[in-house]
């Protein structure tokens, strides 16, 4: 067990290193430097500036300086407004984490419930309705869904106010973010639940006279959960990238909006920092879900 954990952690750390390296070297391939403006400054001044920001050193040395800075939480400053990137990320990530966290729960619990319902009511109209809507929702891109929700509920019907800092209403963004993973989990739960209900141990339990609720919760659902846990990693990835889109549509000042606007402004230090931050977060969450999966599934041995 510990050997496995150690191996996974080592792989995660190596992945993070690779991500930082790719981000750094790829971004440095972009032509032009920060001090090459239209009005070229005095060469002496330029040289001093280059020295001040270590830009005169070879690239690999710059990389290790950057790595060290990141380790201390120093991502440099934004080209757009000259603010510290770490503070920008710090304050905007709180909003994103809140929305994302709720969205994960919203996707997970109804997804499990609908999936189990569809499996238990197999071939009845409830099952057909659930499967039909989950099939359709998987085919809608998140920005289209977010835009349509915004148009209908906020702009046309005026049921839910548009998001502002003073009056944050997370309902629509969370729905927009959670609908796709929820549908996916529903489909996943249904198929694994059907699988579990057809197993011999369920028949044995029925033969013993175990009550139906006990069979569902104790025997079937427990085993049906395992494939859902493997989906936790991809789901967090979806929610993190989906937040870029959904936050932009609802003009929420979270990290997603900051990332999209930094791409449009070509604010390279901010793009780098956000990519690294989100990637590290993602690698960490995937690691976590992998470990939980191994813990939960008794069939897996830690080889």
């Amino acid at each position, binding site marked *: 067990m510990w050997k496995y954990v150690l191996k996974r952690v080592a792989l995660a750390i190596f*992945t993070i290193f690779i991500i930082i390296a790719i981000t750094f070297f790829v971004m440095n391939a972009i032509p032009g430097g920060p001090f090459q403006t239209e009005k070229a400054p005095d060469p002496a001044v330029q040289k001093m500036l280059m020295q001040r920001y270590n830009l005169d050193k070879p690239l690999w040395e710059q990389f290790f300086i950057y790595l060290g800075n990141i380790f201390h939480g120093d991502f440099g400053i934004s080209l757009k407004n000259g603010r510290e990137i770490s503070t920008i990320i710090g304050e905007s990530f709180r909003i994103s984490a809140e929305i994302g966290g709720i969205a994960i729960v919203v996707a997970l619990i109804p997804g499990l419930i609908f999936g189990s319902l569809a499996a238990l009511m197999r071939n009845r109209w409830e099952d057909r309705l659930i499967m039909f809507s989950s*099939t359709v929702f998987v085919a809608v891109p998140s920005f289209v869904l977010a*835009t*349509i929700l915004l*148009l209908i509920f906020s702009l046309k019907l005026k049921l839910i106010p548009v998001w502002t800092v003073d009056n944050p209403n997370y309902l629509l963004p969370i729905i927009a973010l959670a609908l796709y993973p929820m549908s996916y989990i529903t489909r996943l739960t249904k198929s694994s639940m059907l699988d579990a209900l057809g197993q011999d141990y369920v028949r044995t339990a029925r033969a013993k006279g175990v009550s139906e609720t006990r069979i569902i919760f104790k025997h079937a659902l427990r085993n049906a959960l395992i494939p859902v846990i493997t989906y936790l990693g991809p789901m967090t990835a979806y929610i*993190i990238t989906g937040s870029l889109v959904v936050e932009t549509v609802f003009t929420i000042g979270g990290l997603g909006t900051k990332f999209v606007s930094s791409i449009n402004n070509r604010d390279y230090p901010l793009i780098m920092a956000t990519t690294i931050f989100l990637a590290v977060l993602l690698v960490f969450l995937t690691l976590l879900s992998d470990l939980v999966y191994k813990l939960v599934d008794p069939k897996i041995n830690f080889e």
Partner: protein
Amino acid sequence: MDNEIFPKKRPFSMQMDLSKFSPASDEEKQQITQMRESTTFFKDGMRKLRKDPLAMISIAVLLLIVLTIFIAPVIVPYDYQEMIAVDGVRDRTAKNLPPFTYSENEQAAIKSGEKIFPHIFGTDQLSRDYFIRVVYGTRVSLTVGVFASIIVLIIGLIYGSVSGYFGGKVDLILMRIVDIIYALPDLLMIILLSVVLDSTLSRALEGTALANIGTNMLSIFIVFGLLYWVSMARLVRGQILSIKENEYILAAKALGAKSGRIIRKHILPNCISVIIISTALQIPAAIFTESFLSFVGLGVQAPMPSLGSLASAAREGLQSYPYKLLFPALTICLIVLSFNLLGDGLRDAFDPKLRR
């Protein structure tokens, strides 16, 4: 002699009376073989697919879309970057027309006896015909989806089969590389690479034929070629590894089958279906990715439309012209839904593990 093989008949035994049977003549034998037509793996799968209504509807919808994107540009007299002109003069009143309406200038022209092709989806804010833009957008999105999947298929197939066939150290090293690429968050890496390729490729490509495709489209392909093939490679490797160990392969070997026959008759039919299914499901994933990139501002180059860029451009003026979002968004959903359902249908029809 008969008594040696068959002991004396007891009254209640199930023993057959052989004298009642006679060997079949050649004619009778032929009748039996004719009665059951031999079916191949492919034919049998197609028969099952034809019985699946959802899959057939999806195929019909996809065929309809493909037909439209080939035929519509021939019929509709507008171009995707052409602003509407009446009598050779640019028509400034033709901005943001609702579907099936004419601008003031066009109405005047119609009254004077001219024939003007209707704007089926209306026009956009630069007074371009929106229908033809959606048609071209569908073309671009489908091309991206299909080509990206082919790239993924080729790289993944070669990499995965090399890893699966050779096994041992080669497999170990190749799979470690896959593990690392797999752990990279793909969309974030796509954004990063698109940002960089956007500013580096455009200079390198200036004047070449590739410049027409646009750097962003090229970078989508490059990124797919770099990152997305890993799951395909894993799939192919896993398939080959597990099939290689099956008893029927051992049986075939014991019967003296050559490895060429084993690959052709046993390994390929068992994994080709899974590969085709996951390629079919890769196409909607690529279309999603393209529309996501368009939304973030890293999609296809400006006058060229894609479904994603049209839908994300429609967010401006959404309240006044919601139909501009509706048309491209519906097309995306229809394409993705059809491919998903077709993929499911293909899986039910062709996946050997699901066969009963």
